């Protein structure tokens, strides 16, 4: 089984899609890495030789930030916003959307599960 930057790649998938199991790699980046490593994206991960994996690993580590490093970078950016007390930082602190989306309805991804408020009886259809 191929293991790249701390993630086990699923061996029954094509390389193009298997690489996307790594945090920070999507379709575009995956295709880019494979073209640079000169590996056919349609090959299965189980068919890759050790050299192929090493080639992918070399391209990936030299050009992309993935997994832990990327996560910490994102976290740092958010922390910076919070520390300087900007509007976006305040929204992050409150766990609300930071880019001006509506919050009267929706934005459940940021707000989490609905918390029913007692005494709010109007509009019984909406909850």
């Amino acid at each position: 089984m191929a293991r790249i930057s701390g993630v086990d790649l699923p061996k029954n998938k094509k390389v193009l899609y298997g690489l996307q199991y790594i945090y920070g790699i999507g379709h575009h980046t995956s295709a880019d890495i494979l073209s640079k490593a000169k590996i056919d994206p349609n090959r299965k991960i189980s068919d890759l030789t050790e050299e192929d994996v090493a080639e992918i690993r070399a391209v990936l580590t030299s050009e992309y930030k993935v997994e832990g490093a990327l996560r910490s970078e994102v976290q740092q950016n958010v922390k910076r916003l919070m520390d300087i007390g900007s509007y976006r930082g305040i929204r992050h602190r409150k766990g609300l959307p930071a880019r001006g989306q509506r919050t009267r309805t929706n934005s459940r991804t940021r707000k989490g599960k609905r918390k029913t408020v007692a005494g709010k009886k109007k509009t019984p259809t909406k909850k």
Partner: protein
Amino acid sequence: MPRSVKKGPYIHYKLAARIKQLNDTNQKKIIKTWSRASVITPDFVGHTIAVHNGNKMIPIFITENMVGHKLGEFSPTRIFRGHPGTKAEKAAKAG
């Protein structure tokens, strides 16, 4: 779409002049401004700027991290005082 790089960052001309004047004379004074759309440039660092939020002036001390943001981002225009329902609960708990 972002602003054209050719134009450079927007700063209200009077604000820029005030900053320049204070920097030239090495003074630190609170500058009042209504120009929330002005971008903070490196010249601003170390100054305190009072930015209007529609109601009053909010003094902001500019640090290096704030460069590139706009003044209005640091002067919130809305006050969230809690939802009506939760307020009643809080009052009941307190009293």
